[in-house]
């Protein structure tokens, strides 16, 4: 919404432009007026719409055409004034003023027009009948008003309508020819309905209506008013009310009603509350609120955000199977302008036998998005209407920024809940198997995954000393000439080699020596495919010796070729090491040996 309004009055000489302005300001009719008054600024708190307003007068006698054109281009709204008792001044509206203004404004940024009939005190009849066809003919004309500067009738209303034309334009909302709301407006209101439908039953029940009223207008909906709403809709629509709640049709009808009664500011208030701008798009401030992210810090969802996401899941899990079928997922993302999750998500998080994302998987994917791309997460939360439903200031209120890792290491303590593990290994060493096993899939299941649905991430939860933590596994492309900083930055490193491939270990040793030998990041060697016969590795020393030399825990045997779900101990170990990297490595070695 605009922050200030600039009103220009034009019209034939002697129609009363200056009188109107002077009557507004001094609240009495001036008997003598100059040709033109200087620009007047009315402060925000005095105007009905609480926006500072500038009023500019025009006089043919005193101003040149250049000055007029300049004022026209600067104005936010132009009031074309005519005198109701002067037919010629009315004719001039169409044959002079409107064309002049059209010529001097951009086609793309049309200025709204108000037709003002002054001197209504001098006639008995209304000029509305003559003027209405003009309003219908020219779509820039927002309002027609009749007033009298002499009797001080409707002067402040006139300026209220002028402000309103700028702050609450009808153009984007409504098409008077079709007597219907425009498609973009309908789309926006439909989305608002879906977001407000907290239990997703297709109707707004009393609680939801009350919530909606409070969210948009900061006032409660009394029981009588609730009944009024439903009665009005019931009277005019067949299926506007269903099971004593408002349907989408009824909701749209209500807004059409407001608009058709000239109260479209109500609809604008609703739209703006839900983050829409004047073009009926979600505005950038709403979707991307500022969020400071210092280096070495990570981002996680906080408790409120998790609660909100849980409620979103519940609301769409119609069959109550704690999993999202493709239809349910599509319904969930209906309020998004595009589908944010592709089929690879099903292979990044836990899923059920049908391959549908489970409840835990749903939250895991959100955790992953927050960790890896927080801006995108904010955007998604915006589409879901988080800040409105959770009654928070902005989407950023759902994000926790953790403290720098340096400080965690210093204090030997971390508050983080999400830990990242980068998995390195040569081609075919079993990295993907390692990732998928974390999601509870054995080899047989993994073979069913389509190539194009594969994912390089896997995220799920483990329990470390009774606390639930997220472990994010990232499979790094095995071309170590091109390892980026992002590939380096993690809480723990996994080096995977294939025990049945004699050349597999060399790669791991190389990566370790090049990147991780001198870093503080803990490393773990994984001897994958341990179900296959072990062969001697073509490397200077054995993996066990290597690990001992570099103070790493001994290689952990691992296989995902199991009958049931693969063993998850290794992941718990990894998470524990990520949480407590400073713990004596020797201790871990000893402990790890014992567990092995």
């Amino acid at each position, binding site marked *: 919404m605009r922050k200030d309004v600039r009103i220009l009055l034009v019209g034939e000489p002697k129609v009363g432009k200056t009188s109107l302005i002077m009557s507004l300001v001094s609240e009495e009719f001036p008997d003598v007026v100059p040709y033109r008054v200087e620009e007047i600024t009315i402060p925000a*708190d005095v105007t*009905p*719409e*609480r926006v500072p307003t500038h009023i500019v007068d025009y006089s043919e006698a005193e101003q040149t055409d250049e000055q007029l054109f300049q004022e026209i281009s600067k104005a936010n709204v132009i009031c074309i004034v005519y005198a109701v008792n002067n037919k010629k001044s009315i004719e001039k509206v169409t044959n002079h003023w409107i064309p002049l203004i059209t010529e001097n404004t951009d086609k793309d940024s049309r200025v709204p027009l108000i037709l003002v009939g002054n001197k*209504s005190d001098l006639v*008995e*009849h*209304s000029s*509305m*009948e003559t003027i*209405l066809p003009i*309003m219908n003919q020219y*779509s820039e*004309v*927002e*309002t*027609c*008003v*009749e*007033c009298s500067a002499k009797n001080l*009738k*409707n002067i*402040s*209303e*006139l300026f*209220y*309508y002028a402000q309103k034309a700028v702050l609450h334009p*009808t153009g984007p*909302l*409504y098409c*008077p020819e079709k*007597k219907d709301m425009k498609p973009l407006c309908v789309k926006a209101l439909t989305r608002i309905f879906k977001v407000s439908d907290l239990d997703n039953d297709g109707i707004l029940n009393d609680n939801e*209506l009350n919530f*909606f*009223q409070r969210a*948009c*207008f*900061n*006032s*409660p*909906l*009394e029981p009588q*008013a609730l009944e*009024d*709403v439903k009665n*009005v809709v019931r009277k005019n629509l067949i299926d506007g009310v269903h099971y004593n709640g408002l349907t989408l049709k009824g909701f749209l009808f*209500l807004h059409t*009603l*407001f*608009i*058709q*009664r*000239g*109260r*479209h*500011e*109500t609809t604008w*208030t609703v739209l703006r509350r839900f983050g829409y701008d004047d073009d009926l798009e979600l505005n950038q401030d709403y979707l991307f609120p500022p969020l400071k992210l210092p280096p070495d810090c990570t981002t996680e969802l906080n408790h409120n955000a998790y609660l909100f996401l849980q409620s979103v899941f519940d609301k769409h899990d119609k069959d109550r199977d704690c999993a999202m079928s493709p239809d349910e997922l599509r319904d969930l993302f209906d309020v998004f302008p595009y589908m944010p999750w592709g089929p690879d998500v099903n292979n990044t998080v836990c899923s059920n036998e049908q391959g549908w994302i489970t409840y835990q998987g749903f939250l895991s994917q959100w955790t992953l998005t927050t960790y890896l791309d927080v801006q995108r997460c904010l955007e998604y939360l915006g589409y879901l209407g988080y800040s409105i439903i959770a009654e928070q200031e902005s989407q950023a209120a759902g994000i926790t920024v953790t403290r720098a890792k340096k400080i965690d290491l210093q204090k030997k303590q971390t508050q983080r809940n999400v830990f990242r593990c980068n998995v390195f290994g040569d081609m075919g060493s079993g990295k993907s198997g390692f990732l998928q096993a974390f999601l509870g899939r054995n080899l047989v299941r993994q073979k069913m995954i389509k190539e194009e649905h594969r994912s390089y991430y896997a995220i799920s939860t483990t329990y470390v000393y009774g606390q639930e933590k997220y472990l994010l596994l990232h499979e790094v492309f095995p071309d170590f000439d091109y390892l980026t900083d992002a590939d380096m930055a993690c809480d723990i490193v996994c080096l995977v080699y294939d025990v049945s491939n004699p050349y597999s270990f060399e790669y791991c040793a190389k990566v370790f020596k090049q990147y991780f030998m001198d870093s503080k990041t803990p490393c773990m060697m994984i001897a994958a495919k341990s179900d296959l016969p072990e062969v001697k590795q073509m490397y200077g020393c054995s993996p066990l010796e290597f690990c001992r030399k570099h103070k790493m825990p001994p290689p952990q045997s691992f296989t995902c070729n199991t009958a049931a779900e693969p063993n998850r101990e290794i992941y718990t170990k990894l998470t524990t090491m990520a949480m407590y990297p400073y713990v004596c490595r020797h201790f871990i070695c000893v402990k790890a040996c014992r567990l092995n």
Partner: protein
Amino acid sequence: METETEMIPIWQNKPHGAARSVVRRIGSTLPLKPPQRACFQELPGLPSLRPFDSPSVPTLADIAWIVADEEETYARVRSDSRPLKHEWRPTPLLVLHRNSSVPNFRREGKRMEGLKKPGMTALNRTTALQEELSRLRAQIAKIVANDSDSNPLTPELLSPDDTSMGFSMAPFETTSFQPATATPASFVISDVTEEEEEEEEDEELVEEDEKDVVSVVSELLPDPLPPASMTASATFDLDRPSMDFREAEEDTVSLSKSTSFADVMDILKDMNKMKMSKDRYNRGCTSLREEDSATLISEALRKKFVLKEEDSVAVKRK
């Protein structure tokens, strides 16, 4: 006799403090309690008055009158699809502020002012005065009932016929100046608290205050606004009458101070049984009580004048 030392005027002999001015010295000797401050309580359920909220956005709650709204033929918005009315009638200027969903006291007050006819004011004034009167009488009764040994209370306060009892009795019970600047009552200042205070603090304060009541009275006379305006919760009706009220006050008939307080006390003892109901606007009840208190007070005055005659006779005898 000459003094060598320089004479310092009394207002300069202390650098600051209560001893510096006469008024302050009087004030520090008077056992006046600090004024009871009005306590504002946010009523639950009402929306908070935010200064930046645009007042004229209709909400879902206004759907009823919006649907029925067939007025405003002086202006027509583009999207307005109602058929154009052929008669042109001037509409009230406040038609835009009809938001009925929010009980905004400010607006309601304005609305009532705008729509009120002149004759109403006089009627309201009378009602207001009557209520004020009954309230004051009840207060008198309470003081009297609770304290039988106190000093003479000037009968200035006790005249039933003089409607100019503009200044309130409340100070004598709670020794509080009602915040004289009666705030435009945007909040419902609970009448309850006033009365509870009266009831509770009566016993403690009356004894102390009676002595000083006389002197306090003179200070209190110019009390600008009676509590009437305080208790006008939702309307401004009483603003105007109270202003006229004040003018009448200044023409007060001052009664003689020589009347014995004790006589009136006896008579008014009966009044302590009648406590003011919390609903001050329940005129049915109060009128009954008014009569009782009125008759009692008038009886008391009659007796007072009888006594006076006796006194004067006694004086003459002397």
